[in-house]
């Protein structure tokens, strides 16, 4: 049995190699995220100014929607030639496959978020970089929470006929706490005088959520995927 | 068969036409009403005058009735499904028995 982390790294490397040849997923996801932010701007900008407190919401909804798109695309690739089935037959720790896919997705979403945050800060004059490390913590932890649930659900649905419509149906309700915590934490940071204790609370809650759900996903990956 | 199909088609079109006409009429009534001015903030009140208070009894009764209706409705759907299943089980077991007998 190859080492757990080594397997995860191999899966990640495979995904990175495939992606680096076409860069299709990266460019389409970034473009989609940018369009999301623009579309929401038209919804929430009045008289040249964004509606109070909408910035955090726009940011996180753009992340959430583009994340779902990326998840759906990531596992579409696995469907062709039944790659995932082949992977599952390999004599390795199954959860390591999950981890490899998760890391690939986190890398992709990380790049997308850099673009989205820059864009949101620019378009809405949001002072997102004043408390840079805290913002980074909220974004990172929130994305990990979202992606850990999403990777599992996406893998679960890979052979299901209605997976395109079922993924959002399953994913959004379960990741609403992440959305609440992320938006509240970011909004609290954007206040003229941020309540740093409150922000700290949201960060710890996100950390707790991530721990619980990452563990659950690793624990249930194999039984859910095997017949 | 074809004749009843034609009748159904005509009936459907009449229904859609009626729906469309009534929607248009409803729209015009709404257009006449004055626009509401946006409220800036909530203004607290200590005592709402009696004539503006909602009657509580209908709310209570409808809440209780809703609970009953949902519980009984659900029980009824289970009963219906169970009945259909048990009929089908009888049918299939008879077919299995026939198959084994022959």
């Amino acid at each position, binding site marked *: 049995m190859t080492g757990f982390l080594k397997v995860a790294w191999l899966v990640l490397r495979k995904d990175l190699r495939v992606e680096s040849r076409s860069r299709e997923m990266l460019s389409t996801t970034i473009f989609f995220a940018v369009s999301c932010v623009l579309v929401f701007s038209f919804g929430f900008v009045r008289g040249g100014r964004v509606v109070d407190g909408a910035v955090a919401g726009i940011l996180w909804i753009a992340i959430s929607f583009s994340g779902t798109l990326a998840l759906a695309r990531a596992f579409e690739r696995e469907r062709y030639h039944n790659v995932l089935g082949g992977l599952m037959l390999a004599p390795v720790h199954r959860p390591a496959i999950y981890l490899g896919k998760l890391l690939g997705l986190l890398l992709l979403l990380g790049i997308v978020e850099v673009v989205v945050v820059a864009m949101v800060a620019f378009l809405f004059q949001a002072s997102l970089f004043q408390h840079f490390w805290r913002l980074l913590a909220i974004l990172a932890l929130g994305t990990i929470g979202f992606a850990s649930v999403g990777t599992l659900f996406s893998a679960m649905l890979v052979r299901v006929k209605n997976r395109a419509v*079922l993924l959002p149906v399953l994913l959004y*309700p379960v990741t609403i706490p992440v959305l609440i915590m992320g938006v509240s934490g970011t909004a609290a940071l954007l206040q003229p005088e941020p309540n740093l204790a409150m922000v700290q609370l949201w960060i710890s809650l996100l950390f707790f959520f991530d721990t619980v759900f990452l563990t659950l996903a690793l624990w*249930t990956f194999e039984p859910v995927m095997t017949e | 068969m074809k004749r009843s199909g034609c009748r159904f088609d005509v009936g459907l079109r009449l229904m859609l036409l009626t729906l469309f006409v009534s929607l248009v009429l409803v729209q015009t009534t709404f257009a006449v009403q004055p626009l509401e001015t946006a409220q800036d903030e909530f203004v607290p009140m200590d005592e709402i005058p009696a004539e503006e208070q909602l009657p509580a009894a209908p709310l*209570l009764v409808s809440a209780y009735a809703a609970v009953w209706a949902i519980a009984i409705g659900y029980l009824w759907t289970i009963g219906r499904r169970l009945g259909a*299943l*048990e009929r089908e089980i009888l049918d299939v077991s008879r077919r*299995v028995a026939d198959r084994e007998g022959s």
Partner: protein
Amino acid sequence: MNRITFPILVAAALLVFVTAPFVIVWAPYESTMGLVQKIFYFHFPSWMAMFLSIFILGIASVIYLFRRTPRADGVAVSAAELAVVFGLMGLITGPLWGVKAWGVWWQWDARLTMAVILELILVAYLLLRRYGGPGSDRLAAGLGIFGMANVPFLYVSTELWRTVHPRTSVVPTLPIDFGVPLWWSFAGFMVLCLALLFVRSRLEEQRMRLERLYLTLEEE
């Protein structure tokens, strides 16, 4: 066992439900909210029944996912349906109470918001089972576990989310004077929940029996 316990459960549930109006009328009026507060006596127990069902769903999902006991799968899907039913009761009685107590139908109250999200998760579970095709029982078991694990996070995050915004609602606390009708209705709902779970699980057992019969038919 079913022949004795099931009728007892049904009788007990009926008894509680029929006598509940009298008990509720006997209870004293609450000072600020008056008559409409009495909705509380079946609003709160329907929540508790929903939580009980979600809990059963989670446990049954774990058992099914790791032991593949068919009975556990039947219990899981029954519990999910029940949770949707009791959640619906709570979501209807809540705004009916709220329109009198708050003046508006919906006020993003933390508990009601959490209930809506949980209801969404449960409906998603039922949609997955219905439209997920073969193998959806395993997938739904995974979703069931995630749904149950989500309950504490939903509770905390919606509570915190609502404290940031100004609250104009009356927050009900559990006074001791109102204990009797509350616990009476509570017992009724718990018993009803278990009775419905029995019936619904039996439906699943019959369905599995039918599938086995079809398999034997096809074998020959």
